[in-house]
């Protein structure tokens, strides 16, 4: 049976964690849960890929997304700086659609 556990951390008075800080905390905890077992569906996929000759490596990183109207770009990297750098490159590639 799954048990929901609550972790309480007293915060100094007046301290309000920013939404992205809370999201980062959530990501960190989810990574810990995953390392301790978490879901198991990934194991079957990993086993099959390794049987097919793939070498696998798992990392936790930053995903940044940009939207404007119908346009959407996404970049992923180990650090937030790198992810934004890549996002900028992707956005700047299409800054002006060209003509034949």
């Amino acid at each position, binding site marked *: 049976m799954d048990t929901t556990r609550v972790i309480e951390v007293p915060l100094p008075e007046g301290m309000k964690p920013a939404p992205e800080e809370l999201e980062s905390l959530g990501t960190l905890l989810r990574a810990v849960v995953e390392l301790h077992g978490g879901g198991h569906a990934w194991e079957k996929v990993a086993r099959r890929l390794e049987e097919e000759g793939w070498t696998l490596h798992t990392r936790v990183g930053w995903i940044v997304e940009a939207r404007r109207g119908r346009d959407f770009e996404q970049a992923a990297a180990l650090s937030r700086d790198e992810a934004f750098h890549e996002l900028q490159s992707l956005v700047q590639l299409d800054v002006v659609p*060209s003509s034949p």
Partner: protein
Amino acid sequence: MFSAGVRERYQQDLRGIEEAGLLKRERLIRSPQGADICVEFPPGAPVKRVINLCSNNYLGLSSHPEVVAAAREGLDARGYGMSSVRFICGTQDIHRQLEERLTGFLGTEDTLLFPSCMDANAGVFEAILGEADVMIADRLVHASIVDGMRLCRAQQDTFKHSDMGHLEEKLQEHQDKRARMVITDGVFSMDGDLAKLDEIVALAERYDAMVFVDDSHATGFIGRTGRGTHEHRGVVGRIDVITTTLGKALGGASGGCVSGRLELVEMCRQRARPYLFSNTVPPVIVAGALKVLDLIGTSTERRDKLEESTRYWRSGLLELGFDLKEGESPIVPVMLYNAKLAQDVARDLFAEGIYVVGFFFPVVAKGLARIRTQLSAAHERHHLDAGLEAFARVGVKHGILGKGRKEIVEAYGA
């Protein structure tokens, strides 16, 4: 299933495109391509003969009788289609012959034909670069190059348009990569400016980078003998990959190629997906292109005429008081800045018998709307004079002669 709901969603998208003034409508041309053509627009209107100032028919060979005759002979001798990709049973002797001729013309080591330059650009980067490499592209490269870069796993970066200082910074930044490739158009299609290939090559050699150029708007007529931007800039033999098209100056039908270092072209032959999985260039196109190379290989008359016409056209427009982008190529943008003004001027020019198209955001940056005129060696002096007279009348009508950006924007808005 294409349900009513799905259909309605797409109809809404299309309405949005129309409301934004971006709906493209085709004009029916009822003649061969040439300096003047017969156009039916809007559909059902009487067919009208107009002077064409918006084609890529730079050398006037799209309907040249010798090219048409050669294509017809090719059709008779080699058939209509190969029904195959190249490497299975789609390579005729004339395909190899054309590749060898293009290699000689461009001054490279080898060439591989593709169904189009769009396909060449889509396939080349993924075939020759990997995740340990980096592509550093000018920010105004053609859309087909952007698509090709996105298909490649190499890291992507950009440099400010034609900014050699910024390019140098990027080359320094990426010295940790296995390979670096600088990517640029030879002639940029909206502004008509030429890449500083000599400076790019110097930087690339200093920082150990390869150079890629899409020379589609240059092959056949830029440079003293029409070899392209690399000839114009004195760097023939120092460009690692050139892609170009047979669909503009070199006959205007279809087809493209990757040309460059032997090993890079061979990698494309082994790995480029558009080459591996798309039908071979039809024999009729190959035969026509071989004739085009015959015609331009023995004489520079056409490219010389194009150069002179460009000079005449540009100075004529400047004398009338139009605001032009500076440049040397036969792409001559007439700057109007306001999107509606560009559309109105194009409409009025059509009424005067001149076929041009207005370009505005998002095709060009906001506030930089224009009419892009393009010269052809098929244009005779009377075409250009008629064009200038029409531009003069329309310019007077809209009160834009002698006005620069500030005055036009004040009168019409950004």
